[in-house]
């Protein structure tokens, strides 16, 4: 099914912005982000969050900080940068338009 690859790619692309959205207002460590995404079903294997976070950091959309934890070794916290906020805002606008447009066409097609 050709659409399968498309859905995977869409999910992968959208996941980056979901992570950015989870970081709005407060920084989190990876484990918290995984918990935040668990209900969405978007993160099929938890380990893939780490390449994603590394990528976000490389692109300057998040930065990181080690913080002591009360019950174990220090944790690396991720925080939204100004660039990250800008990217998220742009995606939100884009996504809203995209969703409306696709929905409109899909609904006009009627039920199968």
């Amino acid at each position, binding site marked *: 099914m050709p659409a399968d690859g498309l859905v995977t790619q869409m999910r992968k692309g959208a996941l980056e912005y979901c992570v950015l959205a989870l970081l709005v207002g407060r920084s989190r460590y*990876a484990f918290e982000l995984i918990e935040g995404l668990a209900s969405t079903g978007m993160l099929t294997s*938890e*380990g*893939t969050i780490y*390449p994603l976070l590394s*990528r976000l950091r490389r692109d300057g959309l998040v930065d990181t900080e080690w913080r002591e934890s009360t019950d*174990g070794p220090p944790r690396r916290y991720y925080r939204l940068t100004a660039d990250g906020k800008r990217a998220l805002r742009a995606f939100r606008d884009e996504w809203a338009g995209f969703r409306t447009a696709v929905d409109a066409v899909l609904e006009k097609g009627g039920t199968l």
Partner: protein
Amino acid sequence: MSAPHAEQIISGYLARLEQALSVLPPARRGELVDDVRSHISEARRGLADESDADLLNILDKLGDPADIAADARDRLGPQPKPVAAIPLGLLEIAAIVAMVLVWPAGIALAWLSSAWSQRDKLVATVLIPAAVFGLAMLPGVASPTHWWVLVVFLFVTPVVWSIGAIYLAIRLYQTRLGSPNTKARSGDRAGVLEIAAILLTPLFWPVGVILLWTSWAWNTRDKLIGSILPPGGYFGVAVLLVILRTLNGGSCTATSDSFGTVTSSCTTYGPPHWVQLAIVLVLLALPLCSATYLAVRLRGARLLKPALAS
């Protein structure tokens, strides 16, 4: 309490992950493995009394190392776009050459280019001021009392003066070397670039050295030998001759004591004539030697190529 086979299960998983990530640069691979390792210990913290099955569940949720690696390759692997964007255009060559000739212009051009990272640009910007400062701090440089201090100084100055340009050229070479775009490497061809590098290295050293580093034709060792052997090239020799001539003048001081007797003492701190001659000869020969060396190595590389292919 740890699960009976905790050590075995976890290290096996991490080893498979590391293996699967082998296409990534070591730094990124190490970081990801560390992330996953701390993920596992974080997950274990939530378990009161863990069993082997608990650990296997944690690893199952993390996912197959091959899947994580595939995702990492997609997101972090070498991307075609930045590679194509690593330019070696007129701007980069102009920036490097200007670093030697008109330093501020060179810095400005380097900052305009996208071929270097911010860090490289910063390093290149502070290198010359730092090197000049360091050189000035050396004992005896401000008021040289021995001729050999000046000779050493003369050897070092062109290196210091071109250090920013050399750094940029080396970094550019390394970046292009790291790019998977091997088609861009025309390593076995003696093109205009290579010939210009061989000719200019003895004649106008900084520019020659820069061309040398931008070529694929030599390996890093050859390039180092070509860069360091003739510091300054014949341009440096000319400067040295002028300095030696002024040194030979020496200085005389005349003092008169209370009886009106005038005693004059002269000091010359120029090197003995045979030393001067030897230095000049060596300096004339060295650039020629390294140019010859580069030419021979170039020819060797070209001859070796068909032999390797067959």
